[in-house]
């Protein structure tokens, strides 16, 4: 149990550093900003209580907000992602359910399952994030395109990271 918390803490720190030092500096033609820190929310244990999940989401988003100077933006989007996670888990549950005590990771449930699970949550997170960022409906479709493109990149990077972790 302690071991698991420590490992999640390590993942948290690594993802925040990756996000802030590397991915925040990536901008393809103003349309694509990948946000991979959301992987941390994806990797939390299946049986975690919803209130704890929400508070962890809040703190994760808040950390990103503080280091990137966008108070409240990532927090709102990440809390929303944390809120929809239990429903997404229920929709995408494998035929024989989730193993008790296991992380929802690619290692255990396979690439295809992880891709669907990650895509839904990342997409919801990005939609919320990008619309909160522009905060107007004037450029509705442009913002939608940005959210979709960024989601594609984020999911790719998340899958890559998960693949590396699996190989480790």
């Amino acid at each position: 149990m302690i071991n698991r918390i420590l490992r999640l803490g390590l993942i948290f720190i690594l993802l925040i550093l990756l996000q802030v030092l590397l991915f925040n500096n990536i901008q393809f033609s103003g349309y694509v900003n990948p946000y991979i820190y959301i992987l941390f929310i994806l990797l939390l244990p299946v049986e975690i209580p919803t209130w704890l999940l929400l508070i962890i989401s809040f703190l994760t988003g808040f950390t990103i907000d503080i280091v990137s100077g966008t108070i409240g933006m990532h927090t709102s989007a990440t809390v929303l992602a944390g809120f929809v996670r239990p429903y997404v888990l229920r929709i995408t549950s494998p035929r024989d359910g989730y193993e008790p005590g296991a992380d929802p990771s690619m290692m255990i449930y396979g690439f295809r399952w992880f891709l669907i699970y990650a895509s839904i949550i990342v997409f919801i997170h990005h939609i919320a994030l990008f619309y909160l960022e522009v905060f107007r409906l004037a450029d509705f479709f442009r913002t939608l395109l940005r959210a979709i493109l960024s989601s594609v990149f984020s999911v790719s990077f998340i899958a890559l990271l998960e693949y590396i972790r699996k190989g480790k």
Partner: protein
Amino acid sequence: MRNLLNFLAKYNHLIVFLVLEGIALYMLGTANNYHNTRIVKGIRGLTAGFEKRVSNARSYFHLREISQSLSRENASLKTTIERLTQKDDHLFFSVADTIRHQHYTYTSAEVVNNSVNRQKNFFTINKGKMQGMSVDMAVISGDCVAGVVVGCSNNYSVAMSLLNLDFRLSARLKSNGYFGSLSWDGKDYRHAILSEIPQHVTFGIGDTIETTSYSAVFPEGIVIGTVSDFEKSGGDFYTIKVKLANDFRKLRFVSVVGNLMREEQLELEKQFQ
């Protein structure tokens, strides 16, 4: 109570979610200039649109009162024009005479000091020589007699109030034109005395008393008040108690009236005395 607890237990994650999301959005709105501005702008636009509708509806319901007040204003403006233009009853006049039509000048002023409880009351207005005031100009308040200027400094003037034992004014009954002398008896700031109206004249309580232009101070037809009581005094005259139209306790905005032809009139009259 149990239902409430059940409800809370059932929706606990929804409540936690709403609380946290609320905090996050609140931070978003307050900590970021851009978002804050957008929100304030949006709310202002919303309330402005709503208020515009409400005030539209309200002004529609008030149309009646508005039109009444407009017509009242119209009437008073018309009388002002009437007073300012002299009747054209002579055929020849100098083309270069630019003030031919103008008999009186009007200057607005504000009362800065006033009294009503002495026997000789004066009030002070905030216009003086620099603003064209001079002695013997008339002071009226809302088309009613207030007093006469008796002294000017550069920026202030002192006027003798109608409520002064030394104040004398030529006044007449509007209904039939008989004139008498108006003065104050020093008793009550709401009433003055009109004397020297002959006893054969008929009039009633409520008749209007107005100024004549005999003194060359007040324009003709400025309201003084209404008849509130009268009695026979001595042999041939009435003593009429006049209820003043002005409330001298509330005197605030006044107009000072200058007679541009006063000098001419007095000079001519002097030759025959």
